């Protein structure tokens, strides 16, 4: 209790990292099968301090520091899940999950199906995903499209502190493998928390998007950090009389295509915004799904994707800034789509 009160800033807001911390704390307390493992999660309090205080409270058995051996510890986490525990496996960033991706896909995602439902794998893989600031090409990749491609996984991408808390609690309680994509640049961002989010049983369902801002002229679909960018762009456009409906996906797989379609049938225009690369990405999938469904006939213009630039992430600030969607890019793309 003391820890969660402390998490509230003087403004009554909570930072994303503290919301994640609270979610894990509550779930560790609720179910003794839950445990956290990863690099620096215990004695260092987490590389990004997301697991601060947890080792002190729960000890070595529940909060485990691993050596720098992703393939090995991810396999160990999956095996522990198969044998009845409920691990939270942290990747210091999702870039390192590539070393372990076989365990995530072949050992975790596919097992329930291959065993015809006999063997479940209740595991959460979590960590920061996508671009950070100045960490260059090998540490900046977005894995949303990679993991969301695979049946057997659920892929979640929270934006706000409330998203983070509610979705992480759902992910931990889910009996299936969940890939939980956080964002390092969002960890320190404070958000208002609703009354109900303070309950220890507060969860947000996986697979439902949220309309963050109602609008009538264009549907803007996005996830993670870019929800902030889209809301900022929407505020600017509102001054020009353009009302954007901003949809925060919250979950990448399964994609809440119904919410998107209902919105497109209202606005007749669709713009997707993401940090990941364009080809075969989240935006590409949304466009394809909308084309195949009832909303297509309502479109007055082809859908537009706003994405990261199709290059490995450069280091220099000016280059990095221009590798990712900026608010001005979103505004320009929306106007172009609306032909204004």
């Amino acid at each position: 209790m003391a820890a969660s009160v402390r998490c509230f800033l003087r403004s009554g807001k909570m930072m994303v990292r503290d919301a994640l911390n609270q979610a894990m704390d509550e779930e560790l307390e609720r179910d003794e099968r839950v445990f956290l493992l990863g690099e620096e999660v215990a004695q260092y309090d987490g590389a990004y301090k997301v697991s601060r205080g947890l080792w002190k409270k729960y000890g070595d058995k529940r909060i485990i520091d691993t050596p720098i051996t992703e393939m090995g510890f991810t396999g160990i986490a999956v095996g522990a899940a198969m044998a009845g525990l409920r691990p939270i496996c942290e990747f210091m960033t999702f870039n390192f999950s590539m070393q372990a991706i076989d365990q995530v896909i072949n050992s975790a995602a596919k097992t329930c199906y291959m065993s015809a439902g006999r063997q479940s794998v209740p595991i959460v893989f979590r960590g920061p995903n996508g671009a950070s600031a100045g960490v260059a090409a090998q540490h900046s990749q977005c894995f949303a499209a990679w993991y969301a491609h695979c049946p057997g996984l659920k892929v979640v991408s929270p934006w706000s502190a409330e998203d983070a808390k509610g979705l992480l609690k759902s992910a931990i309680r889910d009996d299936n493998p969940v890939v939980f994509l956080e964002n390092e640049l969002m960890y320190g961002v404070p958000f208002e928390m609703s009354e109900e989010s303070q309950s220890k049983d507060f969860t947000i369902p996986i697979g439902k998007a949220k309309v963050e801002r109602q609008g009538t002229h264009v549907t803007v679909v996005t996830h993670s950090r870019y929800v902030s960018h889209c809301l900022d762009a929407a505020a600017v456009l509102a001054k020009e009389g353009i009302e954007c409906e901003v949809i925060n996906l919250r979950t990448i797989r399964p994609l809440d295509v119904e919410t998107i379609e209902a919105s497109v049938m209202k606005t007749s225009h669709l713009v997707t915004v993401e940090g990941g690369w364009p080809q075969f990405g989240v935006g590409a999938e949304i466009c394809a799904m909308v084309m195949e469904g009832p909303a297509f006939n309502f479109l007055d213009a082809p859908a537009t994707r706003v994405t990261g630039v199709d290059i490995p992430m450069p280091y220099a600030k000016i280059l990095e800034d221009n590798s990712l969607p900026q608010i001005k890019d979103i505004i320009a793309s929306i106007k172009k789509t609306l032909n204004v």
Partner: protein
Amino acid sequence: MLTNFSNVLRVCAQRNGAAAVVSARTYADFTTQATFEIKKCDIHKLDEAPATQVVMTRDEGLKYYRVMQTIRRMELKADQLYKQKIIRGFCHLYDGQEACAVGIEAGINLTDHLITAYRAHGYTYTRGGTVKEIMAELTGRRGGIAKGKGGSMHMYTKNFYGGNGIVGAQVPLGAGVALACQYQGNNELSVSLYGDGAANQGQIFETYNMAALWKLPAIFICENNRYGMGTSVERSAASTDYYKRGDYIPGLRVDGMDVLCVREATKFAADHCRSGKGPMLMELQTYRYHGHSMSDPGVSYRTREEIQEVRGKSDPISLLKDRMLSNNMASVEELKEIDVSVRKEIEDAAQFATTDPEPPLEELCNHIFYNDADLEVRGTNPWTTLKSVS
């Protein structure tokens, strides 16, 4: 006089074509148990080795014989069905290695845990699967142990985590199971098997590190059958002392063709683990008669003479049979009866496996998730929506 009477009975039985139970001698004539001298294990970072004088009871012997024979005949039947194209895809057969699966199971409990790679039919059986559901899985029928969804490499039972297709991936998984045992404090242990080919995988060394660091109750077992697919151990490993490859983890090199050797070594390792000392490594020196899989004739990288020599001198079933017969623990007829009974079980299972229907198409999308709401799955085109139930 008793002998004459028995002989008469036997002759009568033969005349009547009776398949069964009249033995030449009564069970009271058999030795109930005997002590056997077994090969000493090579040890690594250990002060003592498993015992070389071991006791086997008649009942144990008969059980090991039956189980090994069942695995043998089941695998040979699978060979047949594969050649008839009734089994498709991958099929990695275990004949020759039976003493490993049977010996290991004899050294642990069913409440312990086990995981292996794709040469898994034998283990699926020793861990509690029936021949019927194993064969029906191979033929892809609804009565298969994974309802036809998994196939040869993906069979599961209680405390048996498959059947794994990706070489080496099962080893960290097995250590994870051991972590769960330690976490839950249930005094159970986890056996993780891998082959000589997999033994060079990096993730296995990552696993050794964590298992030793955290003293996990894990037994790592390398089934060294001398060939990783078509590559001999000499051509793939800088060090072929697989029992030493765990470095700081104590190891044993065991005669994998002798079920008693395997059993003794497993018991030794299990005691070590259960006492909280951490993991142990075992290398079982064994041999597969078949090629790597049914696609591999198995004679391009080894000679037929070599295969014949192993069959002639080291066959695990023959070894056990000779031991039992020469120690008066069973009769030739009794063992033949077991053979007949096993053959029948396999025939019945094969009959089921070839006549049971394939899984219904309605099941196509089921079991993607566990304990989850029903969901809709896109079919091959936008107008096909399929249902998935967990």
